[in-house]
């Protein structure tokens, strides 16, 4: 306990330097902008801004990128409430009751509750990260290749279980991602694999190319082919700050949402996305007027919004302590760390404590900043929504092209991203989820590396994965999760969580 406090204080002393506060502010502002504008997600934005961080110091770079991520979560809910377009996948639930509140003239209250809920969740999640960081890293240091392999297998299985929609399709997407990661020179022998003789594939596919292709270009293709109707809210926004009574009514929902979101956020794959859905389902179940859900219940905004923000933050835990990114955004953070020469893993906290604690503490400052800068700026965000899409997407195209080119100086990579954009559109048309693919790709290379390392150590015996108790335990948990997911009754209730919302 005392350790946690002194570590956070140390982190604050780093995060509160003028330079880092500035980066945090820029990150939050850009993130909110991205969240507000439909069609630009955090994955594409962080990918575009990755080259920008080349000229920054590691701590500042990560603080800014983290700010973009949780800023986007926040901005996404603003659009969800005001225009009924969830700017981010996690804001889908917020749109349900939030927009209904806006129609009743309570837009301000919905926005205010979302902001306070997010801030509360952010505070709790920051403390949680600080508290579990120590134990998690010491656990991570015990891991050898076999344990890491089993841990990743467990992560991928959780990602499948938590994905919504077809289980079969989610597994296929993960494996497709892993398959894509094997393209390029073999890590041991240098032999070219599945490159089709193309020179630009020799070094493998860069994750940034996939991220910008599928989440940047793919999104544009989708919007051009199936334009979404946009209706700008004309009602007055109303009073932003909830009264003490309203706060008291909604505070329990925030606490529940924070708890649900924090736990689910740590899980790989859709964890952070599942949080708001689960919170909505819980609020609906315990409410004395469940029939009103969907018609503008404040708790249905406060709970999921807290869950959303808590999950966004706790998804940093696996990355910072074990070096394993649980989703696409965290995978880009790995990229940002590698650019700076920092190998993510349990050793980070030991070797660069200023980076680790500075980043954790900056999340709390960032959340505070979001409340302070966003509520007064809501008018501005509404204006931004009126930027016509016909100008928005050419700008995104230009930014993506420049971003891609500045990372690799390779024109071929820019074209490859367009191909991945088309792939993203095909996936959307056939209702495959892109998130498991990204996760599979990210973990794929590490997965194969650890598999081969483990087998070399064990002289080729695959028994190594079950003779280590830690590894066996992880695999058993994974098997149990998979078995549960396939059981019809559990599958049904899992679908209900999504259906409810």
């Amino acid at each position: 306990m005392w350790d946690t406090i002194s570590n956070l204080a140390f982190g604050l002393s780093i995060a509160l330097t003028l330079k880092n506060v500035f980066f945090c502010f820029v990150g939050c502002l850009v993130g909110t902008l991205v969240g507000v504008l439909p069609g630009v997600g955090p994955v594409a934005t962080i990918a575009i801004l990755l080259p920008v961080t080349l000229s920054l110091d590691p701590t500042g770079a990560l603080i800014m990128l983290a700010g973009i991520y949780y800023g986007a979560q926040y901005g996404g809910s603003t659009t969800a409430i005001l225009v009924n377009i969830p700017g981010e996948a996690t804001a889908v639930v917020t749109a349900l009751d939030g927009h209904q509140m806006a129609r009743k003239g309570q837009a301000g209250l919905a926005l205010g509750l979302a902001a306070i809920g997010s801030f509360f969740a952010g505070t709790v999640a920051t403390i949680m990260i600080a508290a579990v960081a120590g134990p998690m890293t010491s656990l991570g240091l015990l891991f050898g290749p076999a344990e890491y392999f089993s841990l990743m297998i467990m992560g991928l299985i959780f990602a499948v279980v938590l994905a919504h929609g077809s289980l079969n399709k989610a597994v296929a997407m993960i494996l497709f991602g892993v398959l894509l990661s094997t393209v390029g020179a073999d890590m041991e022998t240098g032999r070219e694999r599945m490159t089709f003789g193309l020179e630009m594939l020799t070094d493998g596919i860069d994750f940034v190319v996939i991220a910008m292709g599928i989440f940047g270009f793919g999104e544009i293709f989708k919007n051009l082919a199936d334009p979404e109707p946009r209706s700008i809210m004309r009602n007055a926004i109303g009073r932003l700050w909830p009264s003490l009574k309203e706060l008291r009514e909604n505070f329990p929902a925030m606490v529940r949402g924070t708890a649900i979101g924090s736990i689910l956020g740590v899980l790989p794959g859709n964890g952070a996305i599942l949080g708001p859905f689960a919170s909505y389902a819980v609020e609906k179940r315990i409410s004395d007027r469940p029939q009103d859900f969907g018609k503008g219940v404040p708790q249905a905004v406060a709970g999921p919004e807290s869950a959303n923000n808590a999950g966004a933050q706790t998804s940093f835990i696996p990355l910072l302590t074990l070096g394993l990114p649980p989703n696409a955004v965290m995978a880009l953070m790995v990229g940002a760390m590698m650019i700076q020469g920092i190998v993510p893993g349990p050793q980070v906290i030991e070797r660069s404590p200023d980076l680790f604690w500075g980043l954790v503490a900056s999340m709390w400052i960032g959340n505070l900043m979001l409340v302070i800068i966003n509520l007064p700026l809501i008018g501005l965000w509404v204006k931004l929504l009126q930027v016509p899409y016909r100008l928005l997407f050419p700008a995104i195209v230009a930014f993506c092209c420049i971003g891609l080119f500045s990372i690799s100086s390779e024109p071929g990579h820019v074209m490859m991203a367009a191909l991945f954009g088309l792939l993203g559109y095909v996936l959307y048309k056939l209702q495959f989820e892109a998130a498991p693919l990204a996760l599979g790709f990210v973990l794929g290379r590490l997965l194969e590396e650890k598999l081969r390392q483990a087998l070399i150590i064990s002289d080729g015996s695959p028994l190594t994965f079950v003779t280590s108790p830690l590894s066996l335990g992880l695999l058993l948990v994974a098997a149990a999760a998979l078995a549960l997911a396939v059981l019809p009754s559990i599958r049904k209730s899992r679908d209900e969580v999504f259906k409810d919302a």
Partner: protein
Amino acid sequence: MSSELHTEVEPEEVPPSSPWLGRERLAGLSLVGLGLLALWASSDLPFASEFGVSSGLVPRLLSLIILGLGLLQIYFSWRDPGPSTGSWRMHTMLPVVAAVILFAITIRGYEFGPVHVPELGLLVATPLAVVVSGLAAKDSKLPELLLFAAVLTIFCVGLFRYALGLSLPVAPWLIGY
């Protein structure tokens, strides 16, 4: 997701003209195709070496499982092949694809066969990408788009080259870098 969200965002679902064109069936077929392609692409790799795992094991194993999942998906879709995927409207995205290719070949110059594109830099590649991709919008207006491209180009050159100091070619034909 709620039904009301669905009706607002997604177009109505219609049955496919043939069961093989249903969304779920097509998904299965695509996976089978992907599995076969990957199997073919990895066929020249050694499967096992004396150390146990060789470069071919993981790709080939994955290809086989994906192939299997595709067949499973086709089996699942036997009774209900899913709704029609609707019109794909691929023409709507052509300008964007063209814009990206144009950017890629003009930014640093490109050679393929007899064609030689000189290094034109950001000053040409950016407005080209903006204007060409902008034509993809149904409601695009050329004068507005040209003006927007000019403003955006100045902004991008200022931000990426001068403010952030990234070594991107600006206009080698005009100012030498």
